[in-house]
């Protein structure tokens, strides 16, 4: 997708000019080159914009949530079905459960902070989320260097065992 087309996705909220300016600033900040943005670059831009306060952050997180249903940002791990845009999640996972997975390795406050931030980046504001969403949250954390990444990978594996894919 071109930079202009990607900016047009944000324009309904920010307006044409502001959307283009924000996307250009993001591209510069993240060091992308060229006029074409691939899926992972789009995701990175939205992730970065999603950290901003107010309307800009909310718009980016909303768009990221929409993209999560259609962007194949990474291959689904074995044993976990990647359900695209599922209307009827099989089961739910709570933030408390995700936080508990990290509490054993970092402080409770730190664990909450990590999970809150990761959930916010995925547009999750409620206590409960689908298994698919929880997996996406953990996948993002899994690439974090150090103990956080290790814990996230273990948590993701346990989630897959707990909620095996159908068929």
């Amino acid at each position, binding site marked *: 997708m071109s930079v202009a087309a990607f900016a047009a996705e944000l324009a309904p909220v920010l307006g044409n000019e502001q959307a283009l300016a924000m996307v250009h600033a993001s591209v510069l900040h993240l060091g992308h080159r060229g006029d074409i943005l691939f899926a992972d670059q789009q995701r990175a831009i939205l992730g970065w914009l999603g950290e901003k306060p107010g309307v800009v952050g*909310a718009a980016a997180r*909303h768009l990221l949530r929409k993209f999560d249903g259609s962007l194949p940002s990474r291959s689904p791990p074995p044993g976990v079905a990647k359900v695209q845009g599922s209307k009827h999640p099989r089961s739910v996972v709570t933030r408390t459960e995700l936080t508990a997975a990290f509490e054993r390795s970092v402080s409770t406050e730190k664990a909450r902070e990590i999970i809150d931030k990761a959930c916010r980046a995925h547009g999750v504001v409620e206590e409960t989320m689908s298994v698919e969403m929880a997996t996406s949250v953990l996948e993002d954390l899994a690439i974090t260097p150090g103990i956080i990444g290790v814990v996230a990978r273990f948590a993701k594996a346990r989630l897959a065992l707990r909620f095996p894919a159908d068929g």
Partner: protein
Amino acid sequence: MHAQLQSVGCTLVRMTNMQRQGASAVTAAKCPQAAVELAEELQKQLGSVAPALMFVFASTSQPLSELLPLMAAKFPNTAVLGASTAGEFTERGDTKAAACALAIVGDYRVTVGIGTQLGQDPERAVGRALEGQPSHVHGYEYRTAILLLDPLAGNGEETTLIAATALGDDVLLAGGAAGDYLAMKETWVGCGPQVANDAVVIAQIFSKQRLGIGISHGHRAFSDPVKVTDAEGGIVRTLDGRPAWDVWREKTREHAAAKGLHVDELTAETIPAFLLQYEAGLSVGDDIKIRAPLQLVENGGISFACGMPTGSVFRITESEPDRQIESARLAARAARRQLGTAEPASAVVFDCICRNLILGERFNDAVHAISEELANAPIAGFETYGEIALNVGEMSGFHNTTSVVLAFPRSPG
């Protein structure tokens, strides 16, 4: 205030084609008599069938904090939502200093919640409003969300996006920002017995038939582009590097003078109404999205109904009465079209106070235009400080000076 879930089911009643599936009522009485009159009128029209959902819109003469709990008590098996207004109307016409209600009968499942401290933490407020609400109900294919919020929290657009993100892509979203007759002091929203300001109410309507939504504004941009150079949340301090109010007066001077308005003679009491006639238009694709300025703040800044990020570029707009009436008609027509082959049973309308200011006596023409397009089905609505509408898959949901019509389909007999 912790969110309270009110989950109401509606037993399917075998209905004939003559069964009313919607009813509207209006009263100028004060509370508690207002509740008595509204309830009696609705029950007279609906008979013994309990509505699944009810909207109550109250002027400052019937404080929502008094009226809504009374209505909830009279209809214990109904999800009752409400907002304070800047004006109310039904298919009979526009009213002032009144309260109106719309009752919807049909095979719906409705859940509702409220979240407070909206200004401080909109994510948490939305989370609380949605807490415990299901994302689907077996057997009910369609999901429509209603959002009522306090615009004086200053984050209407952000809250709408947060809610849309949380609700998911398959949801139709409609709603409005509460009003207070241009006092700009306190606006209220509520569900059941709970009424609060600095709050957001989110209801989900699960249905077997699709509801229809229509959106239209009648504005035209006339100024050259203006850039927000210093803003925080909904407060715009400077435009093009100068105090916002100075720029606004400069850009609107000629157009206002042509209508007999002199910008240098405006006072603190008349400025809010003036600002609502000359609103900001954000270029979005080939269209414009309207952003409503509400009042002056210190040092020449202007407060808007939603966030105006620094760097935004817009043009100042105006609208003529005929365009306003036509746009109301178009919104209703679009809502009816989305019902497909179903006839409209009722509709709730969120219409900006700005229309009333622009149209004056002719606002009734806009209400009648909406009613005609919906085959004279019962409608009720209120004049808002912001309108919310998001079709499935769309990006932006918060509008100003726009008519949003949400139509409910008639169930087959």
